């Protein structure tokens, strides 16, 4: 239990049209310690920023750290649902934890809003009316990279990912949009930190581009070793390996790398400008992709709470589905399976003051939904 924030201090939202008889409890289970804690911390900080800005005192937050362990996440979810009686849950970063927690949470009547993980099952056959994904379906950024490779004229890609479900989904997603040939498809070990063998294969493959999905420390190691080896085949990756939180650790090796993202801090819309400014003021760092997702999730919840209490499940669900909030992504709406339909951009890593950041250089996909919506019957 990291901390339990009781009713948020602040002014009562006087604009609310209806008096809420009962407080709302939101349970957040996310990764705050252990490997990958940076992501969970960003989601939490983005989420709490929106909550503070709203200043409502009828919302009780319960925040727990899952340490990225599925069995801990399940335990905490059981506690939140059975003992704390939460109405809404959110926070999970990783697909494997999502699969452990979300189906049973929604089956017990709780609303779940995912600020990050979007496994294909939950978008397809295992979709649920009380489950909303506010980030993306897992394949989206990879699909966008495939589309980008086409516009860039790449015809022979070397593709690389860890040998686990999200890795295999990533390469499938890339190839769903990519029209050229695949020079070689390589699966690495999860958690692998030395990529010399793979980089040698890339150098000798004759490929004209490299697409890789290696989250966290794996990506840092790969990009740095790739630059070190002096291979000049262009790299393309999803935003995860080049996001604000880890750019500092990748260092200059990342300069010029193109990556795909549904959000960037330089997206020019009023909600985003205000968010970036407020986030920097509050936490003294640039927000990441994950922070924007946490912020959007909170604002979506707040917009639906203005309409109905979660106890009135049908009305609350309709209000969520309407997605009537100012997203940092600009246009945002839900598809039939409660996953986003949104634009996905291409960003490039550039220098920014002492450090590095991303700027948008193009749009890879417009109004992209996902490939699994057809399989969802709700």
């Amino acid at each position, binding site marked *: 239990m990291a901390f339990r924030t009781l009713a948020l201090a602040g002014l009562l939202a006087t604009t609310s049209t209806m008096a809420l008889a009962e407080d709302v409890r939101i349970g957040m289970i996310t990764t705050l310690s252990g490997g990958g804690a940076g992501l969970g911390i960003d989601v939490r900080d983005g989420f709490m920023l929106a909550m503070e800005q709203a200043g409502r005192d009828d919302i009780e937050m319960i925040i727990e750290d899952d340490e990225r362990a599925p069995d801990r996440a399940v335990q905490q979810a059981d506690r939140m649902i059975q003992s704390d009686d939460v109405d809404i849950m959110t926070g999970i970063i990783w697909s494997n934890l999502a699969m452990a927690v979300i189906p049973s949470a929604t089956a017990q009547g709780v609303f779940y809003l995912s600020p990050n993980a979007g496994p294909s099952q939950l978008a397809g056959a295992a979709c649920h009316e009380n489950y909303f994904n506010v980030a993306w379906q897992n394949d989206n950024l990879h699909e966008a990279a495939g589309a980008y490779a086409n516009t860039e004229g790449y015809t022979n890609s070397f593709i690389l990912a860890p040998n686990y479900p999200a890795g295999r989904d990533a390469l499938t997603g890339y190839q769903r949009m990519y029209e050229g040939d695949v020079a070689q498809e390589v699966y690495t070990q999860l958690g692998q930190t*030395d990529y010399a063998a793979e980089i040698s294969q890339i150098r000798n493959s004759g490929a004209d581009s490299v697409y890789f999905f290696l989250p966290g420390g794996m990506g840092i190691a790969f990009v740095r*070793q790739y630059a070190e080896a*002096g291979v000049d085949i262009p790299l393309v990756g999803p935003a995860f390996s080049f996001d604000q939180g880890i750019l500092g*650790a990748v260092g200059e090796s990342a300069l010029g790398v193109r990556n795909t993202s549904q959000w960037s801090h330089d997206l020019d819309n009023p909600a985003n400008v205000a968010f970036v400014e407020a986030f920097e003021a509050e936490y003294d760092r640039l927000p990441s992709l994950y922070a924007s997702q946490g912020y959007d999730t909170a604002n979506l919840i707040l917009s639906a709470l203005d309409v109905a209490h979660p106890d009135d499940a049908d009305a609350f669900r309709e209000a969520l589905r309407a997605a009537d909030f100012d997203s940092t992504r600009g246009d945002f709406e839900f598809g039939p399976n409660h996953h986003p339909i949104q634009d996905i951009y291409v960003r490039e890593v550039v220098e920014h003051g002492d450090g590095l950041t991303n700027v948008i250089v193009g749009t890879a996909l417009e109004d992209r939904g996902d490939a699994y919506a057809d399989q969802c019957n709700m």
Partner: protein
Amino acid sequence: MSAALLIEQLLNGLQFGVMLFLMAAGLTLIFGVMGLINLAHGSLYMIGAFAAAGTAALTGSFWLALAAALMAAALVGAIVEMVVIRRLYDRDHLDQVLATFALILIFSEGTRFLFGSLPLYLDTPDILSGPTTLPGGLDYSKYRLFIIGVGLAIAGGLFWLIGRTRLGIQIRAGEADREMIAALGVDIRKLYTLVFALGAALAGLAGAMIGAIQAVEVGMGEPVLILAFVVIVIGGIGSIKGAFIGALLVGLTDTLGRVLLPQVFGLIMDASSATTVGASLASMAIYILMAGILLFRPSGLFGGQT
């Protein structure tokens, strides 16, 4: 596969093996001399990497960072030896496993508390950045060649230290008969602290060197620790020579397994299942190697009786 690519992969395997040797040498020395199994050796690797990243951020110098890593790891090693490890020498292996497992928990979370959860950055020095062309026209990373060079130099140094110096004689005597060397007037406590600090320094150096080409983060030591255990079990616990041969075997098996197994399976099944099955088997290759070796030599290639 072309000959050039094969040579490049052999170099990669050698570099990986040499790095594992730095870890395994310390583990096997500590076991050989003090009879201690130290799970926290991976933490010393991590401490080296963090000390280097911290120093590099302050001073901007890679060489100072390396020196800091050596010193920090040796210092932490010496302190831990005096405070905790010393009490474990005459305990059974179970107590040693548990106490050093507890140290992992303390070091990992302590480091996270001090440095935060985000990975840190450590850069390679300019002089070693980028590739160089080897005789025969092969491009290879200068920094990886540097790691191979340092590793081999340290291996040579260790063989010399143990085979030719006074300290080496004491270490070998300590392995053979602990009471005897105490009776000969050697300060055994000091010797143990020294050996532990030496092992720690090697781990710290490995952590710092590898930290420059991968992420410096909490938990980075554990995968390496387990590989280092595999190395010393294959080589025979307590044997520096065994650790060296074992490290190279593991490094080459792992690297070549990753490259070759998917291709071998590609001959008998379709490409996409071959990559998946090949990658799965490659991740188990070194454990299979170890099980195979222990089947025929239960105390490793160069191990005596323990």
